[in-house]
């Protein structure tokens, strides 16, 4: 199981500002290890975020999103204490969801 995401979601005026740091190798499949063997591709392909069950963002990613991806976005209609849930799925079929209370 992968490490948890670090998510910060804070009310800024009429919007909620979200900053996420995910823990993932984002291996492109183009890189070779010390023995010259190609390191197989392994990267996040899908990210979704919801606030109290309402979708607020969805993203499709390729291997050229940086390792340990950073993502920031903003949405309206969220309040302090609402639950923000972020989910990713990768090429290995693994997925991870983390949830925070909006501060």
């Amino acid at each position, binding site marked *: 199981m992968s490490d948890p995401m670090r998510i910060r979601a804070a009310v800024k005026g009429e919007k909620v500002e979200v900053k996420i740091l995910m823990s993932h190798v*984002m291996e492109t499949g183009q890189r070779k290890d010390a023995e010259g063997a190609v390191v197989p591709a392994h990267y996040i392909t899908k990210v979704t975020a919801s606030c109290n069950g309402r979708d607020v*963002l*969805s*993203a499709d990613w390729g291997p*050229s999103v*940086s390792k340990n991806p950073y993502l*920031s976005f903003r*949405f309206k209609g969220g309040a302090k204490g609402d639950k923000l849930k972020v989910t990713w799925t990768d*090429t290995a079929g693994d997925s991870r969801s983390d949830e925070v209370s909006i501060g």
Partner: protein
Amino acid sequence: MMLARRRFLQRLGHTGLAALTITSGLLPRVVRAADTRPAFAAEAIADALKALGIANPTKSDAIRFKAPDIAENGAAVPVEVESTLPGTREILLLVEKNPHVMSASFSFPDGTDAYVATRVKVAESSLIHAVVKTDAGAFYTDRLVKVTLGGCGG
């Protein structure tokens, strides 16, 4: 005696060859593990956009695109895109010189700002395109990012 040795060697040769064929037949499949999503498999920006149903986006000043002129580390180039175009549904990031140009797409339901910040890998100095899909067609802007250390190592 000689014949036996010879047969043995022949057999070894055959199995060796067979093993080699199997390995070489498998390797490219494992290595290439190409993305099955057409836009992410594309090697040219026009092809990636075509796969997403976008043809000839219009250049627009209503897209604010922040990216460094010079990136010391191509493995993590910070990019920030904000669209003030009405009815913005999606923002796409494409790196022209990467082996596969399509980096990411973000779609915004009603109530979410047409804004995103992330970090992308840039293999070599390249134009990065920010394409915006709106209800009234597609628009884009681009930035040249010079990379002193390529992004494929990390």
